[in-house]
């Protein structure tokens, strides 16, 4: 029998703080579509980046058609016939569609002059093939999200790869677009291309793949062969496994809080193209979870609640006081703070030390009579929270950049705790955080909730919502489509995931 198109053997990869891959094997035959599924941080994207030559594996071997290869950089991957569409499309916004599609693959006449005409035709052809009409002379920054995604796909298709990696390409697309894309993918498959498909919408995946690789904690834990019998539930079960260590003991489980004091109330809150008609009420000492996929508008909703962005219309009440924040400061003054999902870009000053980062928002309260910083007090406070949140750092004078993801995340939370806010918005509390730290973060969030703080938690990982929240709102395409209470029987991972991952709801934004 012939050699597989692509064969990965025992691939390992570690990043500072987290082991992304711990011994992955993968086989991709000609004319097959292999899907990679798994919860966030399971290692899917890391693997595809390794195949695409973005960074090398720490150990392990890669064979293409039986030949062992080392993919030192993207150009090599391209020559080996690997095309990839990255999770966040990496395009040069300042350049036109053609220029992006042909970036570093330019066609030339007599090896010097660019063949602009040909490139234009080619790129139009590719786009047409993908079923989109985009003015190829437009600057990419002027395109819609969907169009950008398409350009990224076109970029990868251009080299007529033997192996095509599609990393969560369907996220921003609507049903029609997805169906069309799938038709194309199938054609490609039938022409003998090997395709690695990474996605969240299980129905899609079952529909399109020849085999499904399930990832968990940087390992592939099983392979499923789609068929009428194969249900989303089975896949999900395999995705989740039984990793008790992430679950809290029953005693610590959140319980419906008694007092029903309103702290936050939203009426028809909307922002053009991001979310619409959000209605809900948050009570004191309550934790509400928001479940949804990337791009479902939850992040933007949270941002509007602290005033990082402004909402277009609708009403927002904090403790029955109507508000509309113009900048984050307003939000904080009103007692609302957000733990953003990108702590490095939006949460921390990496070049400063732990105490600076914890105290930055609360300096006002750390002054002595002379209006100078009371360093003693500051130190104590910082120490206190480092203790309370069991942040692992040699000292509070350690630079944040030297800490692991989990501890960095804790510091961002500590910042708001020190500020003593009533409402804390947490977007992806455990992104890029290893298993153990996750657990601790849940505990401390719960703890705050029990101290009467109100929490809004957003996460693609349902388990953590189940751990923390009293009820979970499911958001798809910027709308709340369902609400699940702790005391109802749907309050479990499978049911919620199947709502999220079901293909019935699509982005209209």
């Amino acid at each position, binding site marked *: 029998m012939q050699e597989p198109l692509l064969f990965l053997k025992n691939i390992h990869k570690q990043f500072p703080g987290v082991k992304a891959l711990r011994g992955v094997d993968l086989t991709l035959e000609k004319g097959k579509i292999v899907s990679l599924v798994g919860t966030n941080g399971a290692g899917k994207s890391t693997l595809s980046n390794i195949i695409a*030559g*973005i960074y090398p594996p720490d150990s392990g071997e890669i064979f293409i058609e039986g030949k062992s290869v080392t993919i030192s*950089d*993207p*150009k*090599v991957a*391209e020559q080996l016939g690997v095309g990839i569409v*990255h999770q966040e499309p*990496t*395009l*040069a*916004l*300042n*350049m036109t569609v053609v*220029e*992006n599609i*042909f*970036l*570093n*693959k*330019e066609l*030339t006449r007599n090896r*010097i*002059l*660019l063949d*602009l005409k040909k490139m234009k035709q080619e790129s139009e052809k590719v786009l047409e093939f993908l079923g989109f009409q985009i*003015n190829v002379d*437009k600057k990419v*920054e*002027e395109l*819609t999200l969907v169009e950008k995604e398409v350009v990224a796909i076109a*970029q990868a298709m251009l080299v007529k790869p033997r192996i095509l990696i599609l990393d969560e390409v369907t996220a921003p697309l609507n049903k029609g677009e997805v169906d069309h894309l799938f038709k194309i993918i199938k054609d490609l498959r039938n022409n003998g291309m090997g395709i690695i498909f990474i996605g969240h919408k299980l129905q899609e995946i079952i529909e399109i793949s020849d085999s499904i690789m399930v990832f968990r904690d940087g390992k592939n834990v099983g392979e499923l062969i789609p068929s009428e019998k194969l249900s989303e539930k089975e896949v999900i079960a395999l995705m989740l496994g039984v990793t008790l260590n992430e679950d809290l003991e029953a005693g610590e489980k959140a319980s419906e809080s008694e007092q029903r004091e309103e702290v936050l109330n939203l009426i028809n809150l909307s922002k053009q*193209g991001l979310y619409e008609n959000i209605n809900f009420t948050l009570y004191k000492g309550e934790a509400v979870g928001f479940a949804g996929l990337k791009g479902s508008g939850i992040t933007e909703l949270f941002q509007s609640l602290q005033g990082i962005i402004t909402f277009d219309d609708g009403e927002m009440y904090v403790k029955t006081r109507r508000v509309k924040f113009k900048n984050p400061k307003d939000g904080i003054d009103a007692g609302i703070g957000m733990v953003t999902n990108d702590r490095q870009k939006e949460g921390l000053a990496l070049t400063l030390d732990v105490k600076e980062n914890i105290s930055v928002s609360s300096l006002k309260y750390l002054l002595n009579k002379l209006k100078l910083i009371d360093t003693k007090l500051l130190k104590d406070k910082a120490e206190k929270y480092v203790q309370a949140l069991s942040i692992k750092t040699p000292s509070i004078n350690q630079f944040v950049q030297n800490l692991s993801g989990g501890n960095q995340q804790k510091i961002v939370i500590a910042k708001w705790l020190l500020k003593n806010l009533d409402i804390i918005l947490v977007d992806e509390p455990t992104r890029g955080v290893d298993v153990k730290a996750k657990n601790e973060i849940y505990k401390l969030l719960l703890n705050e909730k029990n101290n009467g703080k109100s929490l809004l938690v957003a996460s693609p990982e349902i388990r953590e919502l189940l751990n923390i929240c009293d009820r979970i709102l499911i958001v798809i395409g910027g709308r709340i489509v369902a609400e699940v209470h702790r005391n109802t029987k749907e309050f479990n991972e499978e049911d919620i995931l199947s709502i999220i991952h079901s293909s019935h709801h699509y982005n*209209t*934004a």
Partner: protein
Amino acid sequence: MASDTASFNGKSIISIKFIKDNMLVFILFLELIMGVILSPVFLGKSNIYSILINLTIFGLLAIGQSLVMLVKEIDLSVGAIMAFGPIAAIALSKKILAVSGTEIIVGGNYVVDGLALIVVLVLFISALIGVLNGVIRVKAQVPSLIVTLGMLYVLSGLSYILSGGYSLYLTNLEGAKWLGNTKLASIPVNFILFLTVGVLVILVLKYTKVGHRIYSTGGNEKAAIYSGINTKFWKVIAFGLSGLCAGISALVYSSRLESVETIQGSGYELISIAIAVIGGITLEGGRGKIFGTIIASAILCIMLNILSLVGLIAWYKTIIVGLIIIGAASQHAFSRRTTE
């Protein structure tokens, strides 16, 4: 619905872009009209010539600077290169030709021979300095502002050491004045050179891979790297070209004044940055067109010319120039925000 709004936005963007793109040209015309009104001799032949040669000298520097700014860097050393290039070139060719027994400097400071070699060396050395800037920048990861500032000090010091402070006469050097003073079909050769360089750069950026490399390096380095582009290499290239442009500009300068002096070009680095910015090149990298730079250098040179024709004291000139820089920078800042 969604698609409608998109296309609508598309239209409005186009119209804003149109205004934005042609703003400079409008301003240029406005200036020309002003010039004609304010001074009868503005359109006089020799006045135009003197505008054109300044346009060449500053324009060349600005083009180089623009290339560097397109890859999201900055070059403070161009002015110093203008002096160091020729001085080092002459010192070197003096040594080289001395071997073959030809003495190219007589009377202490009269250059009389070896033009070809000197010209070649000027271009070579200038480009080399540029490359050196680039290499230090990318290898040692030192901000280009610092690298080129240091280089500025180093070069201007070396210029004095090499020349001993003498300005060198090129008056007795066969063909030295050709570039700066001759005209073909009543068009100054230096201006033809400038246009050639300008057009060449524009064409190269548009019709060869180089353009895509440079714009992607400055626009989104990550994307460039992901598609396998060696961004470091292209930064070095940009610096090299900037040095080269400075070298050419130095040739024009020296040929015009038929001399080489230790202070020539001092302070020009800031002017070249100013021109690039007026021309719409931003310090964020990857945005703006060389065409804009060329128009901008015309705008600046003509403006200075008009101001001196109407006989304004230098004090006020500097103020006006400053205001123009701020104005231009804010205009571009605004128009970019409106498109976003």
